[in-house]
């Protein structure tokens, strides 16, 4: 994994897709590729009520990325200093091996350039000390970006609260 973590608080997310739009705009993508996208699961009935969940899926920046292994030209790379998986467009020839190999569908096809494109956590912004484009516009502030150890805290705290509440009721 990269040393960063892009945390999505699914409890807060309303599926407005602003992140997806901002991502496309920042990467200047044509119709087709949505490299960070919200996948709607449901709606299904939970306790008589319709419930939907929205899962934000950019790239997981895997520890051992299959796409990097699959790429025959060395365009798909894992950045040594922080583990971000990105594409060097000068090397990409558009064979789509990364797209085929990724089990999550992270690399996608850009028909305009004839090359693959994927989430790189907005490397250019991160290097300037900024957050990825998607994170900056999230309407409900459900997205957060940072070091792995910091961003998991919310989930841990909420879980603790839930457990504690159960305790009081007992």
């Amino acid at each position, binding site marked *: 994994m990269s040393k960063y973590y892009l945390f999505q608080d699914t409890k807060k997310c309303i599926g407005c897709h602003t992140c997806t739009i901002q991502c496309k705009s920042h990467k200047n993508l044509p119709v087709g590729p949505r490299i960070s996208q919200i996948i709607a699961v449901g709606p299904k009935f939970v306790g008589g009520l319709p419930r939907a969940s929205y899962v934000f899926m950019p790239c997981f920046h895997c520890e051992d990325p299959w796409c990097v*292994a*699959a790429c025959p030209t060395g365009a798909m790379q894992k950045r040594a200093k922080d583990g971000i998986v990105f594409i060097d467009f000068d090397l990409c*020839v*558009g*064979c789509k091996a990364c797209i*085929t190999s990724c089990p999550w569908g992270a690399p996608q096809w850009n028909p305009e350039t004839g090359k693959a494109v994927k989430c790189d956590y907005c490397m250019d912004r991160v290097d300037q000390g900024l957050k990825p484009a998607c994170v900056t516009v999230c309407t409900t502030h459900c997205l957060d970006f940072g070091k792995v150890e910091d961003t998991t805290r919310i989930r841990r705290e909420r879980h603790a609260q839930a457990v504690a509440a159960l305790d009081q009721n007992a």
Partner: protein
Amino acid sequence: MPAKTCSVTRTVTELKHTIDAGRLQNPRSRRIAEEILQLLNDIAWGRAGDRHIPAIASLADELAYDEADAAAMETAAYLHDAVDHNREVFVSHIKTHNCSTGDCVKLAPAPCQMTCPAGLDIPTYVTLIGMGRDAEAIDVIRRDCPFPWVCGLVCTRPCEFMCVRARIDTPISIKFLKGFAAERAMSEGSYRNPEKAPDKGQKVCVIGAGPGGMSAAYYLILKGYGVRVIEQHPTAGGMLLLGIPRYRLPREIIDREVAMLTDLGVEFRFNTRFGQDATLADLKGEGFDAFFFAIGAHQAFKLGIPGEEGCPQVLEAIAFLRRVALGDRTVPGKTVVVIGGGNVAIDAARTCLRLGCREVTLAYRRARTEMPADREEVEQAEEEGIRFAFLTIPIEVAKNNGGIDGLRCLRAELVKMEGQDRKYPKPIEGSEFLLAADVVISAIGQKVDNTCMTEVNGLDWTRRNTIQVNTATMETSRAGVFAAGDAVTGPATVIEAIGGGKRAAESIDRYLSGIPQPSMPRVPVRRGRIDWLEVPASTKMTLKRPDMPLLNLDRRRTTFQQVELGYPENAVREEARRCLRCDICLRCGKCVEICRDKMGVNALQMGYFDFDHPVKTDFRITAERCIACGACAANCPTGAMRMEDRGHERVLSLCGTILNRQKLLTCEDCGAVLGPARYIEFVRKRTKTVARAAGARALCDACSRHASAKITTDNLPSQSK
């Protein structure tokens, strides 16, 4: 003068760089710049119209609206400058759909078209012939050459010498395909004249009814001018008729194609010699506004050896051929020596044989490989029994009382001369011998007979005694007087004369309409952008250029019947399928490089692309090795390499040559296409070290994303109840 880099490409690159570098900060400026870029790209891709250049200029004005925006002002000034200085190049791109430098990749013209002196759009008409659309092919050809049938039989076919297919096996038989289409269209009655433009009320006089003069006449009358052609001989054709013997070009073919011109209203005045029966002053008095001289080169060079002058047994080939063409079939002698190594020499020799000469020898001072004559012509002459005396230099006509004994000659050896490509035949001292003959025919070249031109003052002549013209416009030193054909080039080819005539017609039109003349030579026009013929790789490789069926030898020795009998129809259609469509694929080699160096697959064996990596071309190898990844197609700048899914197959093709077909696998959930098994195997092999062992379901990326999103939600800690 062709520019080294294309000004259109240069402007596109420069503007794109300005935009990409973010120099235009104002969103309005950036939007205008992007619109201009789109228009420029239209020009570079051959889809622009007449209004593109004015539109670019007015958008550039809009861009220069805000003086505070320095970057926009600078860009606007650059664009104005680029368009103004290279207007001709921009207009040429729009009009011809060809970029002479090949920088605008979509418009890189095919080598055959670029080589043709008349700029025929060969890939387009060859493909049309392959489709069986002969009449349309003739229409395409006649936009650049009014005599497809004549050219289909006698053209020297420079196109075939440039044909890229020759790097694989043999060139496409372009000439005969054209001849076939013309013959078929003529016989079906679908060989038609195009519409004439409305009458312009101006008249042009053409002097000489040869291929150059008649081509100019054809294009002028189509443009709406009145045209009169004056010709000193009793019939039209010029050298086509008088120089080329009937066994190569039957008279009916010339007559039928000339009749197309008469049909359009071209007025022919035969037996009218310029300067004698019709003077410049007479013609001016009749109201002719421009003159076009295509008087040819009908005067033979003298051998310049003792005994030649005033000897009735020494004939000039060109006069001899003219005499025979006009119907005189007297046998010149029993034993004939023809001097020369060009097509005229061969024609004279073969004509002698057909008239009944017993022994015909062709004496040439260099060797066989140096002969300027067509190889086929030489071979056919040899088959018919013409003897060749190579490395033979005539030094004297050996006379006896009243007749001649023959030709006294010296043997020669070829020596390399400093600064010359062609070897020089050096006489060997003491090697003198007699070549017995009762008639000697000299065919060592012709020059322009300028005796009729004394009246035309102020005309510049070259050192070679040809008319001096501007080769881009065929203008002479005298306003309103134009010239082309052999009179300008010296003895040359039919197709050069046709090209010259066509160019002259265009500039006569400009002259009479008061439009300035172009300063650059014309770029050949792409007459269509038609789709390719689809051919399986094995067919593309195994089809062979058909042999030309010839008349039997006995008849070839005794009659003037046409020697080359023409291809049967199926051979013509098949031959067209060998064409590599170099008007679409410009052989940049990107596909090969990516497949070999980047992907490591090396499935593309296109040796004909590349002289640095000479592999043997074989389109069939691709199907054995190709994984159908599509990187070649994704990187092809012209769309020649195409990968598409058809039904349950993925098909890779290059200009219609089917290189690979692979069955497609589909997503287990939604049925979306995953790719061919060979491709998936390629990816699986590469990811073997990091990916878990197989067993994973074959899912498309959308379905696998959904599947993993579901796993994520399902595995979340239970929400508060």
